[in-house]
């Protein structure tokens, strides 16, 4: 077969598509919409999973929590000595931190305390802050952009937080993390450990949990098990579990969105099914005519294949490109609320564009292939009948 024949048949299939403009345009639009929505979810989820994976590389390998009566509780700071003696542990940091529900803005803050020593180690180069912005301690704090915005705070501004005993504690803003770090710092208040203890009334000998760093990443699980043996009342959460829970959370959230999209998918399926099971009388007759004019089965299949492929490929490309623009240029406007979850302090962050070839191919596979095949089956069925019978409708 030379190229000419394919060119002519392709050309005719375009003519043929344009003939049923209304019908084909509506298929194209629904198709594009579906690819757009599926593509948006896939892009968003894979970008955010990747974001989580890369940013959390530096997170503590193990977090040790005290469990009391089935809930986590303050952990005695002295436990860190016991953990430190386990072989392979390089560093144990007792963390003092907590959540603060802010009534007026109806939002949750995350408050992180740092001891002077570990803070000084970073003092000259605090990420996302200029050095002159950085002092903490004695009521001086660093805050995230979300808090600054919701409270109308600037550098040097003062604000109160409610202590656990009902009293008020004053703070001064000594620095605001830049917006580029919002994904981590949006709801954050970083203050000295002493200030956190005063705010939450945490007794001196206790911490919230222990952050444990391990030399050999292969040993994390073994060490976590050993911690459980040494400190029977505790629970050791390893980094991998956190990453996994992200995967799961986004997994089922995107599943949820897919479920919500089921309507569209179904409409599309019905449309394809309609094409698959019932060629219209006109279309059948046309196949008969073409056969009578000397078109072979493969010519007719080729024409219909081009028709299906033209619609599905164009819709796929358009949908994927729109999805990309939606996610990475327009802040995932449509799918973000569903996947991120509900929040008052929404961190407005721009995801770093990321495309997983495999996932794009998956979207391609579940949209383009079934459609193209669905258009071919009925054509094949009626093109194997003698043209005389097709034309006469026997």
């Amino acid at each position, binding site marked *: 077969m030379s190229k*000419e*024949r394919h060119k002519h*048949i392709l050309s*005719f299939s375009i*003519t043929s598509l344009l003939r049923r403009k209304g019908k084909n345009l509506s298929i194209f639009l629904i198709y594009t919409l579906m690819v757009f929505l599926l593509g948006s979810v896939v892009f968003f989820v894979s970008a955010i999973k990747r974001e989580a994976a890369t940013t959390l590389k530096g997170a503590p390998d193990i977090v040790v929590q005290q469990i009391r009566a089935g809930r986590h509780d303050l952990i005695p700071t002295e436990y860190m000595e016991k953990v430190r003696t386990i072989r392979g542990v390089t560093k144990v940091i007792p963390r003092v931190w907590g959540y603060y529900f802010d009534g007026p803005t109806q939002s949750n803050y995350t408050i992180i305390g740092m001891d002077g020593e570990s803070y000084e180690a970073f003092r000259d180069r605090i990420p996302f802050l200029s050095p002159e912005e950085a002092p903490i301690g004695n009521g001086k704090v660093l805050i995230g952009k979300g808090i600054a915005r919701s409270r109308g705070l600037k550098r040097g501004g003062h604000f109160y937080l409610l202590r656990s005993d009902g009293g008020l504690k004053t703070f001064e803003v000594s620095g605001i993390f830049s917006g580029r770090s919002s994904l981590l710092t949006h709801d954050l208040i970083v203050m000295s450990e002493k200030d956190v203890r005063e705010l939450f009334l945490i007794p001196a000998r206790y911490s919230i949990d222990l952050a444990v760093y391990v030399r050999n990443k292969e040993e994390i699980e073994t060490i976590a098990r050993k911690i459980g043996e040494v400190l029977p009342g505790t629970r050791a959460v390893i980094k991998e579990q956190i990453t996994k829970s992200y995967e799961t959370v986004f997994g089922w959230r995107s599943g949820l969105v897919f479920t919500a999209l089921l309507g569209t998918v179904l409409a599309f399926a019905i449309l394809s099914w309609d094409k698959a099971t019932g060629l219209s009388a006109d279309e059948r007759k*046309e196949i008969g005519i073409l*056969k009578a004019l000397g*078109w*072979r089965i493969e010519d007719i299949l080729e024409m219909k294949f081009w028709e299906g492929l033209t619609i599905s490929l164009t819709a796929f490309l358009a949908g994927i490109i729109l999805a990309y623009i939606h996610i990475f240029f327009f802040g995932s406007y449509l799918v973000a609320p569903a996947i991120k979850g509900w929040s008052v302090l929404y961190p407005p962050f721009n995801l770093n564009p990321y495309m997983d070839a495999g996932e794009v191919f998956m979207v391609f596979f579940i949209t383009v292939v079934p459609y193209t095949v669905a258009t071919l089956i009925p054509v094949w069925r009626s093109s194997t009948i003698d043209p005389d019978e097709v034309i006469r409708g*026997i």
Partner: protein
Amino acid sequence: MIELKDVTKVYYKGTPKEVKAVDGISLEIAKGEMVVLKGPSGSGKTTLLTLIGCLSRPTRGRVLVAGKDTSRLQEPFLTFHRRMHVGFVFQQYHLIPDISVYENILLPLYPLDMTSQEMEERVEDALRKLRIKGKEAYRAKDLSGGEQQRVAIARALVTDPEIILADEPTANLDTHLSRDFLKIMDGLKEEGKTIVIASHDPLVYEHKGVDRVIEMRDGRLVGCS
């Protein structure tokens, strides 16, 4: 050119609706002959025509077209044979209504692996021959009946077949246009084409260019003149 040997065609075989449309017909048509199949509707003319035109295969018997037994041919070969030798003008013309006249005439050429230029020449040729030049950009459904028929003939001629088959060509035409049609057929006969027309219009079977009139009734041959 065309040879039918004891040909039978049954529709809806094995169902209560079973019809014997053609019943044991034997017939020979020579090259360059113009033959009319005459008979009332339902006599099996169209079925016989589709058998000769390789649009369907006989239930029993043998059909030889251009020296080849088509009754046992596999479907792809049947199609191949059809497009090499036969041009068919249907009673309802069976044009594709919403594409242009030009595209309609092009249709049989698409699968033939020609260059675009060659295709254009052929279509131009057919347009000229059938005097429908100037109409090629019209959509087929916007044409009058006579014009539609000429497009259908042009489409049948564009592959330059040896055999032209026409089913009730004058059924939807007035006397003037019917004469026109017969004139075109005369011209084709002069070119040496074999022509078979199914018709019960006296204008057709009494036409002087017709070599033979074969009469049919209930799927059988009842007369020959």
